[in-house]
């Protein structure tokens, strides 16, 4: 599903690469966590996967497509099959909750009635069925995060990418978000999460640890998480 071969990424003017010789394979239906301290390259890795950045070296294959050679006109096509949950939510603040979620379907050319029905349905699933017409800016942080997840899930993506989905949330709300991600995973979506939240890392999921743009550990699912990784993550959190 996702394959990276010796991928490097260097931002213009940066003295060191954001990603350095990263090789990684994520299979369909996996739930993978990218862990590591700030600046380790977690977000950069996610940005590569939804074409917000282009690798300066190596190859990035998503669903068999080489993103490094993708024409700019084909980028929207790739993004429509990937749900992305951003750390800062990236919602349209003055638009209603329903409009925010509907947008992801509208760009796909879905019928208006279908768009409204599906968007409302997903918002009910994330517990916001009673706030469909409220402007997004009037919601709490946790609610906004749920809207962002609803927008990512409404297109039924093959891959769900989440950047710090539980950052800035209290434990109870973080647990709610985690449940939504697990539900998507159970339905067959490949879920990739960049996080340093111990609550997420504590589960039995594959953890890829990054430091200084390099993968320093790749712990498969159902394997006990080495204490060193947990400790390092807790220190950062």
């Amino acid at each position, binding site marked *: 599903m996702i394959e990276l071969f010796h991928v490097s990424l260097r931002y213009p003017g940066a003295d060191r690469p954001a990603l350095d010789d990263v090789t990684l394979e994520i299979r369909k239906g996996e739930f993978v966590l990218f862990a590591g301290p700030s600046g380790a390259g977690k977000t950069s890795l996610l940005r590569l996967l939804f074409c917000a950045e282009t690798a300066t070296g190596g190859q990035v294959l998503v669903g068999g497509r080489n993103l490094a050679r993708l024409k700019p006109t084909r980028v*929207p*096509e790739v993004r429509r099959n990937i749900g*992305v949950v951003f750390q800062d939510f*990236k919602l349209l603040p*003055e638009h209603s909750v329903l409009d925010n979620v509907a947008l992801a379907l*509208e*760009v796909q050319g*879905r019928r208006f009635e279908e768009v409204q029905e599906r968007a409302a349905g997903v918002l009910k699933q994330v517990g916001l069925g009673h706030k469909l017409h409220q402007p997004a800016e009037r919601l709490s942080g946790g609610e906004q995060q749920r809207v962002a997840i609803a927008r990512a899930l409404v297109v039924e993506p093959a891959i769900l990418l989440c950047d710090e989905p539980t950052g800035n949330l209290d434990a109870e709300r973080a647990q709610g978000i985690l449940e939504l991600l697990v539900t998507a995973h159970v339905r067959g979506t490949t879920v990739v999460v960049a996080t340093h939240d111990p609550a997420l890392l504590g589960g039995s999921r594959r953890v890829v640890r990054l430091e200084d743009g390099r993968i320093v550990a790749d712990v498969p699912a159902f394997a006990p998480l080495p204490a060193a990784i947990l400790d390092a993550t807790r220190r950062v959190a």
Partner: protein
Amino acid sequence: MSTVALVSSMVRHGGRSVRSGGLPFFFAMLMTALGAFSIGSYATLLVNFQRVASTVGESVALVLFLNVEGAVAAEELRARAALMPDVREAALITPEQALARARRGLGDAGRALEGSAGLTMPWVIEVTPRFDLAGATDREALAKRLRELPGVDEVMHPGGEVKRVDALMRLLHGAGAFLGVLIALVVIVVVSNATKLTVLQRREEIAIMKLVGATDLFVQTPLVLAGLVQGVLGAALGLVALALAHASLASVVKVALSGALGTFVLEPMPPWLWAALVCGGAVLGVAGAALSVRRFLRV
């Protein structure tokens, strides 16, 4: 994916762009309205001036003095002159009528002509040339062609007035074209800047749309549609103002000018020009928005 659904989504977003356009949208619309009003006013002035000019031009006839004997030959020449393309009308004046006119024209001195036996006047043809909307007929050329007719002795034409009217018409046409281009450029710049402000205002929204998979076309079309709406509404607003101004000025102008120019009615622009100005507003709105979108929407 349905194209119809996609287009209707773009139209909905275009409507949203119009509603959230705010002050830049309103300002651009106002500028378009001002442009349409200015061009429309100038065109109305031109239409009415052309009408006056054609009246003046057509009232100045060319006079042909003939050296033919008898009414049949004179009538034959009149018919040939009347068939010329630049001639609107050709009227035959008999020697008796010509003499009577000469007496009237001379006033008291005309009495000297009374009883002057043996004084004969020639047959005369008065030619009224056409005065088309594009400008005065080239009277010199017409006079030359008339002079070449066999039996025509002399052609008199008071070309000075016509040349002055013609020159003024050309000046007005030239100034009108310059004004039109100038206004069009100003409207394009203003609309383009208004769209740029809209794009800057909405850059976050545009970035989010792109992140969830919107194509460039999906992002750009609503902004161009908003430009179209702004152009059409602006032009329509300007033309409504023009119609109101025309309605209120028509009676004033009628009273002021009717003595000098007969019964003068301030005519409005022809209908096609009203439609053309609305279409022009639409084209300028789209052009301004497209220009801005192309230059400032690098997403």
